[in-house]
């Protein structure tokens, strides 16, 4: 009997190793798997390469993981936030390397990685500083850049409901990077408000099929970055 449910966030991230590539879902606070990130901070893995659209806010979640100096490199499209100086400080001091990627290219690199596609051509960033060092090729009279697919050892994702087979449904714009990251990671770990039995989610409504998901953790009443930041929380 397949049962992908793991008892706690701590158990779910226990085998993340030093030097791992970890994709972390979320666009701003929407879809940010804060409880899994905090469990990863507690767990202690370091020298991580993180793939995430942003760099977190305040001193919680992704910003707290960065602040704890566990991340040696981040692959990211928008590492600036109004209310966090964590990443700017690390970047300026050279402690965290940044690979800046246009947002759509980042999403497609992740999707491609999960779909077994090692590279693809895109028109985004042609003629810009982000094209430097990239192979380019003309198709039908237009220039495109070669971009590589991205894979990861782990993905930390937030959904709304999952069943014990690992089928996932998301909540509104919190879906964002979850589905492609689940595909691209060897071990995709999904925290959800509610874990249900197989058959309780309409198969027509499933967004991420369970084949892409290794572990499901129930986190009822998950916290939001903005609430923690407003309350002045700093983790740990």
């Amino acid at each position, binding site marked *: 009997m397949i049962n992908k449910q793991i008892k706690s966030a701590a158990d779910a991230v226990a085998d993340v190793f030093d030097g791992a590539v970890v994709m972390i879902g979320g666009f*701003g606070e929407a879809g940010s798997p804060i409880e899994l990130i905090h469990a990863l901070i507690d767990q202690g893995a370091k020298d991580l390469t993180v793939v995430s659209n942003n760099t977190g806010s305040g001193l919680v979640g992704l910003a707290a993981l960065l602040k704890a100096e566990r991340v040696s490199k981040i692959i990211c499209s928008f590492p600036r936030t109004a209310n966090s100086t964590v990443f700017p400080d690390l970047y300026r001091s050279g402690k965290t390397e940044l690979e*800046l990627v246009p*947002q*759509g290219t980042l999403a497609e690199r992740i999707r491609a990685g999960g779909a077994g596609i090692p590279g693809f051509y895109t028109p*985004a960033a042609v003629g810009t500083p982000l094209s430097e060092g990239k192979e380019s090729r003309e198709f039908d009279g237009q220039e495109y850049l070669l971009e590589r697919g991205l894979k990861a050892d782990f993905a930390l994702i937030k959904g709304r409901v999952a069943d014990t087979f690992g089928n996932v449904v998301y909540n509104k714009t919190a879906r964002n*990077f979850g589905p492609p990251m689940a595909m691209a990671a060897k071990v995709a770990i999904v925290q959800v408000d509610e874990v249900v039995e197989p058959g309780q989610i309409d198969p027509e409504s499933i967004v991420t099929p369970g084949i892409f998901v290794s572990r499901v953790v129930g986190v009822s009443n998950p916290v939001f970055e903005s609430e923690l930041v407003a309350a002045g929380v700093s983790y740990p």
Partner: protein
Amino acid sequence: MSEQSTVVGRTRDEMAKRLAQDIPSGSYVNLGIGIPELVTKFVPDGRTLIYHTENGLLGMGPSPEPGKGDPELINAGKRHVTAIPGAAFFHHADSFAMIRGGHIDLCVLGAMQVSKDGDLANWSTGAPDAIPAVGGAMDLVAGVKSVYVITQHCTKHGDPKLVDSCTFPLTGKQVINRIYTDLAVVDVTPDGFRVVELSPGVDFEYVQQRTGAPLLPIKD
């Protein structure tokens, strides 16, 4: 000095209202952060536009009432929004397939500089200590069918934003179709900038003096 303290040309709202007149009903539209967002206030009665926000929503509605925001229902500027009846949610790779695949009709963006060839600079000043952050701007300008810029004609310091060639790092090359400023509506053509319309009370010479490249006159 006296010119800068006097209001000449269109206000931000008037610029957005002017641009809104040019969007056909039924268009799928992506609006950037800032002045572009004002466009939604001025869509003429009887027209329906479907707003795309690249973080994963088609059919974005207005901001919710204060205190009614859902942290998992936000736009690309990370502000709380609503979803209209008929809205759809999707993941990021699909969202940018809509953009890159040419399915979005129009994108409206702000600008630091636009060149006479339609190059856009709007993401970085290139300052060495700045934290580089690009978001989806490069994908949008490369993929959306029409890309309009809405911006003040000059910077706060009075420097032209419409220039011969951009000095700031580019967002995209030859990507801008039309520019709406406080002073004029300007098309990017194979021959350079062409004035489509002057704002009320503004004459051609006044705009030319504040533009960093030759302007072609309004076509008869």
